[in-house]
């Protein structure tokens, strides 16, 4: 007997997954005649349709008379949490597609494969976000990841890209094995793969006679998912992949894949395993602190902008873990908010990184940004805003994300975690300042870092820098309209909801209410 299917619940997957498969099939037939932009436009259309269905789902879920619902014998659950994170994944794919043409044209990425893989990966992400069963969760995780491995290696002409793909794949497959083993142990301990049954079994004390199995299951699941969200010490792949992979793919990874990975972490640990939170919270707390501190500290010493942003994304993962650690509705909504606003910061930042290009060795040294404020003031302004938001400055969404996460930690009385994370945020602020200094305060061709203390006789005749000096030989950075659009949208969202955060906070709050409250 086949279970009943509520197709409305699967609309985003149909648009994303189904659409990408149709595109792939058609592509093999008409490839020769299709212009390069067609797959991109089709991809944008499909993600827009998926986004529309996500919005429709949100309205349905938030309607008090209808509420969350599940389908396919309860293995897929459409609730506020699932819809919120599906939205984040879809937006990540959408904006990555919007600014991808630049990369497609310059680096010669195969346009069709890029769109198809991105849509497929997003379909996996949406599945992951709405999974209510360990098997479906794994299915989503694999679809998400395998497409992402190929995306990382898509820039076939560059060895760095292939290296990124291979590293990501090998380590990712390893992590998937951990996850699967963990899922099997949980099944063994709880007697079901369905998350609500597992939660009920745990609450009824199912773990007591198979405690070792349960704890091992937690540990293995955590390892597998920590890898996906790039938490220290499972982060080693991140800088290499972020440096080597094509920028639109990286932007999608930082925003979308991370959100999907956290969807699994939050759904499993803050949701299903909340009855045993005493068992896993210490582990998450330790990893969160290490991740915040290491991510920030390693950013200080990295000399490549992509690697720097990779470490910064690791640091952000640490903050989101702080939200997970507090193991409650507030922590979950804080993590959701963080994922939502970070998606925009990451997409905008990597769009800027993309137009700044690579040097001969395929990297992007910090010096590429010297004097950018003079050459391309708007680009520099947008990037600065996104960086300051990542540093958590007030009147940006980044502040509210940190505020909520730290607030959740304070509310659960884990003061040490809140305090250490905030100190990590100061170190991270220095990382972003390194770039801002480059853009605004360093003349191109001048010496290095702001802190490379060149102790000139303090306060003595150093007015060589005054006087109008527009004598930068380098031309302004050519910013295509699509990239400008993405950076502007991301910066506008970051600033607007930074000043008026109420809708965002309510959105993230409503997202968790529909799961944990109902």
């Amino acid at each position: 007997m086949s279970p009943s299917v509520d197709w409305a619940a699967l609309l985003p997957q149909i648009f994303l997954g189904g659409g990408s498969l149709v595109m792939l099939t058609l592509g093999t037939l008409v490839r020769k005649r299709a212009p390069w932009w067609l797959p991109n436009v089709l991809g944008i259309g499909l993600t827009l349709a998926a986004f529309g269905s996500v919005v429709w789902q949100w309205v349905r879920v938030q309607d008090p008379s209808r509420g969350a619902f599940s389908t396919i014998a309860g293995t897929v659950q459409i609730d506020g949490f699932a819809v919120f994170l599906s939205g984040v994944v879809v937006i990540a794919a959408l904006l990555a597609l919007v600014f991808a043409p630049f990369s497609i044209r310059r680096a010669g990425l195969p346009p069709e494969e890029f769109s198809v893989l991105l849509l497929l990966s997003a379909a996996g992400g949406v599945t992951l976000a709405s999974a209510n069963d360990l098997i479906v969760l794994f299915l989503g995780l694999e679809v998400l990841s395998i497409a992402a491995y190929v995306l990382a290696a898509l820039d076939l002409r560059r060895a760095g890209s292939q290296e990124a793909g291979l590293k990501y794949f090998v380590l990712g497959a390893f992590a998937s094995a951990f996850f699967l083993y963990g899922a099997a142990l949980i099944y063994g301990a709880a007697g079901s793969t369905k998350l609500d049954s597992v939660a009920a079994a745990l609450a009824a004390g199912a773990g007591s006679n198979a405690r070792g199995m349960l704890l091992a299951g937690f540990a293995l699941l955590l390892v597998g998912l920590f890898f996906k969200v790039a938490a220290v010490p499972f982060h080693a792949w991140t800088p290499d992949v972020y440096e080597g992979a094509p920028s639109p793919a990286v932007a999608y990874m930082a925003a979308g894949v991370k959100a999907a990975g956290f969807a699994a972490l939050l759904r499993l640990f803050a949701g299903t395993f909340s009855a045993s939170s005493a068992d896993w919270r210490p582990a998450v707390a330790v990893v969160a602190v290490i991740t915040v501190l290491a991510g920030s500290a390693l950013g200080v010493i990295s000399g490549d902008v992509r690697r720097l942003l990779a470490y910064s994304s690791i640091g952000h993962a640490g903050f989101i873990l702080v939200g997970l650690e507090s193991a409650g509705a507030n922590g979950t909504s804080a993590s959701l908010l963080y994922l939502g606003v970070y998606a925009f910061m990451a997409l905008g930042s990597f769009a800027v990184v993309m137009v700044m290009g690579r040097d001969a060795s395929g990297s992007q040294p910090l010096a590429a940004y010297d004097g950018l404020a003079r050459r391309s003031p708007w680009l520099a302004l947008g990037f600065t805003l996104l960086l300051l938001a990542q540093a958590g400055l007030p009147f940006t969404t980044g502040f509210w994300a940190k505020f909520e996460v730290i607030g959740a930690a304070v509310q659960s009385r884990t003061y040490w975690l809140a305090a250490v994370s905030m100190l990590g945020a100061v170190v991270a602020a220095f990382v972003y300042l390194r770039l801002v200094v480059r853009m605004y305060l360093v003349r191109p061709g001048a010496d290095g870092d702001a802190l490379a203390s060149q102790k000139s006789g303090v306060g003595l005749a150093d007015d060589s820098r005054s006087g109008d000096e527009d004598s930068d030989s380098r031309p302004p950075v050519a910013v295509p309209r699509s990239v400008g659009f993405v950076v502007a949208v991301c910066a506008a969202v970051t600033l607007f909801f930074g000043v008026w955060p109420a809708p965002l906070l309510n959105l993230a709050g409503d997202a968790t209410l529909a799961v944990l409250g109902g």
Partner: protein
Amino acid sequence: MDVVLAAASTPDFPAVLVAVVLTPLVGAVVLAVLPRRSSMLQPVAALFMLAAAALVAWVVVDYTAGAGGFAYLIDQSWVSRIGFSWKLGVDGISLFMLALTALLFPLATLAASPSRDRKSYFVWLLILEFGCLGVFLALDLLLFFLFFEVVLVPMYFLIGQWGHGNARRSAVKFFLFTMFGSALMLVGVLATAFLHSAAAGVPLTFDLVTIAESQVISASAARWAFLAFALGFAVKVPLAGLHTWLPDAHTDAPTAGSVILAGVLLKLGTYGFVRFGLYLFPEASRFFAPLMLTFGVVGIVYGAAVAAMQRDLKRLIAYSSVAHLGFIVLGIFALNVEGLSGGLLQMVNHGITTGALFLLVGWLYERRHTREISELGGLARPAPIMAAVFLLVTLASVGLPGLNGFVGEFLVLLGAFSSHRWWAVAATVGVILAAVYLLWAFGRVFWGRATGENAKLPDLSWRERLVVAPLLALILFLGIYPRPVLDRMEPSVEHLVQHLEEHAPSGADSARPSVGQASP
């Protein structure tokens, strides 16, 4: 809480404080759309600052002290889900901080104009004023934190982009030091709000008055929270030991930046101690008072000693700020009416005198391109007016009776002496030292024989005289007749001291230090 609200006067123009805060921000937006090389940039920026100053002047005149509560209250919910509201209000404590800010910004703007990138320079100055005004008016913990933190960004760019010397390094140092301080403050803000809502059984709120008046947080938790706040303020003040960013930032900043840094930004810290230390955590403030007083005294003596050794005139003034701010901390943590009023008055005085000193040094530097004391000399002959102004300001800074510095310093010492005698005695040493190094520097720069370029130094221009004139007038006015200021301050200060006595009686505590001090 009822007492406080009842004390609020009924203003004719209730939204005046919103207008005060937003005027500079509107100015920044207007300036941002002007063409880059427009000659109207400086006048327009000054116009908006003067408009804000006019509004503040109206508030100062219109303010009736009443029982010391907050006036012109505006309370508009911003994010109702977390109880965060746009709550502004002014009382006798913040009134003159507001006035100082509104006065110094237009003067600093008119005093000097950078040679490049003038548009962004004035935009940053306006945003900086927005932040500073917001800090002094915010009556919501979170709103205060937002303003307190946002001030960093414009100041960072002002120092880094238009500074001298090692400006980049100084800017980054300033940013990181201050951000380090406020990082834990956010944890403190959150902890205070959550603990209050849990203990009082009310929904989450960040309202300062509600939390401070209820005093439901346990003493030990309040002490930790106080420390989290205090670290943020201590870096900003800065207390001795956390001050290393200050000489660099002050020296390398452009003139306007130095004036605002010394005149307004340092006061964010001392004001924070009064408003969010003493008022919010009275018991913890009394508990930590001996520690804070010690920091204050160390700052006075250390700042004076190091200032005496400086060869750079601007650096000397920067270190003298450390000493002066030590005095202010001494007054605040004397925890009585005299000390607090003296500290508050001294905050205004220091803003006026040090602001004026930085203006003068900035003008001197424009003319001579050096600030080395050894290379200057005999300037009184070619520039008598500059010398006279400099002398007057220096004497005010030293605390000569009849000028503004005296009143504040006297009240501080009076207050400190009556509650913590030995700290006051140690602080008096600083008064003497300050006289030594400042007058010594003045003598070396302005007296003696002028040679070479020194002999041809142009005197203050009319524009410069006009800029510094209001400050001189205030130096004399506050020195001779400080009553109007003290009258407006006192009810609020008394209210605060009463609040302290109510929640942390001084009787048990005042015995302790004298016993402790008797043994050595």
